[in-house]
């Protein structure tokens, strides 16, 4: 029932995306870890997720110095390539434009002059899309019927990750769902450590007082409106903990911190993570880091 509701909500908001995600993550199943087919490696990071029903999400690894250096290198190489091609492109345009000017056909139009590639106008895509990570709803780590539970273990590149939203990534990379473009959380994933996010993504966020849940499910023209449900009241409390099969490995609870806005890279429905007590709040659309506030208060700061 719960799963059906969840799926219905996801489908109601099933929004096509402009772009396809090229994922850099890998799902691990418990049986493969036990059999030795899969391993916990010291150089990789691991994100563990649990909850009473299937979940799906997209996370973005926030660029670090290595990402920036690689991005700049790719950008410079690509810019050099297009700059080399530009003179031939311009010449071709000049010829086509001259022919168009000479033609007497009524519908002849002068083709648009190509833009000269410069460092200012040249772009190769958003740097935040270098390491997208997805999990669910299939490829669970483990599941049980009583109580009903599903968990996911995802091997990722170590680093800091922003939760981009409850987004379904289909085969081929097409997506549907909500991006938490206008406010979310981020957390660190250390190498060789299983970062336990527990059921946070489901029950951590609460209601948003300015956007009360509707009395009936949103449908038709209103599907996709931001009206968060308080899943914590139905499926809470917030719970962390890894199963026996993971206890032999280093693991740690994720430390969630408020994170700022992110572009709607994939053309999804725009939302935000609902407020999370002690972690994330909003002052209109400004993101408020409650942990930073608590730390400042504890140290006597403003």
């Amino acid at each position, binding site marked *: 029932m719960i799963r059906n509701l969840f799926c219905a909500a996801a489908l109601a908001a099933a*929004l*096509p995306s*402009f*772009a396809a995600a090229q994922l850099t993550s890998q799902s691990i199943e418990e049986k493969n870890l036990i059999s030795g087919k899969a391993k916990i490696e010291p150089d990789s990071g691991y994100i563990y997720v649990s909850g009473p029903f299937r979940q799906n999400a997209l996370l973005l690894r926030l*660029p670090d*110095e290595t990402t*920036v250096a690689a*991005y*700049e290198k*790719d*950008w*410079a190489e*690509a810019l050099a390539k*297009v700059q080399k091609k530009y003179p031939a492109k311009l010449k071709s345009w000049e010829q086509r434009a001259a022919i168009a000017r000479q033609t007497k056909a009524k519908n002849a139009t002068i083709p648009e002059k*190509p833009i000269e590639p410069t*460092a*200012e106008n*040249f772009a*190769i*895509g*958003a*740097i*935040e*899309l*270098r390491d*997208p990570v997805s999990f669910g709803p299939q490829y669970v780590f483990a599941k049980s019927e009583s109580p009903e539970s599903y968990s996911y273990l995802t091997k990722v590149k170590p680093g800091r990750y922003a939760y981009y939203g409850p987004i379904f990534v289909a085969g*081929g*990379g*097409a*997506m*549907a769902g909500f991006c938490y473009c*206008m406010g979310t959380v981020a957390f660190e994933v250390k190498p060789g450590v299983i970062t336990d996010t527990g059921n946070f993504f489901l029950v951590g966020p609460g209601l948003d007082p*300015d*956007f009360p849940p509707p009395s009936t499910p949103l449908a038709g*023209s*209103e599907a*996709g*409106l*931001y009206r968060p449900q308080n899943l914590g009241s139905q499926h809470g409390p917030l719970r962390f903990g890894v199963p026996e099969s993971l206890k032999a490995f280093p693991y740690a609870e994720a430390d969630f911190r*408020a994170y*700022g806005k992110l*572009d*709607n*890279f*994939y*053309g*999804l*429905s*725009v939302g935000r993570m609902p407020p999370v007590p002690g972690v994330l*709040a909003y*002052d*209109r*659309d*400004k*993101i*408020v*880091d409650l942990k*930073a*506030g608590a730390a400042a208060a504890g140290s006597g700061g*403003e």
Partner: protein
Amino acid sequence: MPNRYVSVAIVATCFSVTATNAGAQAIKPPVPMQHFTADEVAAVAVPDTAFEATPADVETYDKYFYFHRDSTDFDTAYNDISECDAVSSGINFYGGGDSYMTNYYIGQYGLAGAAGGVIGSAVADAIFGSAERRRIRRINMRNCMGFKGYDRYGMEKERWQAFHFEEGFGRVKDEKRTGYLMKQARVASGPKPGAEVLPK
């Protein structure tokens, strides 16, 4: 409400990565806030928002609506609407990339895969169609402007079309777009409408 958390830190809303000088232009800066002179604002014609609502008008308020927020100046309203327009349309606003120019160079020079991610999802669009994309844009504008605390008001279709646009697969040209957004900002920062405030 806006001052509820005055004592806690407000997270920077802009993406920031330390880039080296050599590559500073690779990572694009966020869109800067635009400022307008009093003359420039005065030159923007104020759209006509007064009308006698019919039951047929009310039925289409999910499509035809505009925004207003008290005590908001034109610059703030314009930048808020521009931000929501960019986020709703899937255009980079917070910095890091430039989706418009990326798509241009991909199209012109075949650079797909240079940075990953920007590949048209033709299958999804074939299933849902342009009408669905227009609907999503409306929903995204409602969500985004709702987050910013703007109230929503219903509008009669013809008047709405005088300063709004719909957007499906194609992209409305920048000049037309900016003109419409400026008119919307004039209304959003103008006198409080007498009409009923609709749900966000």
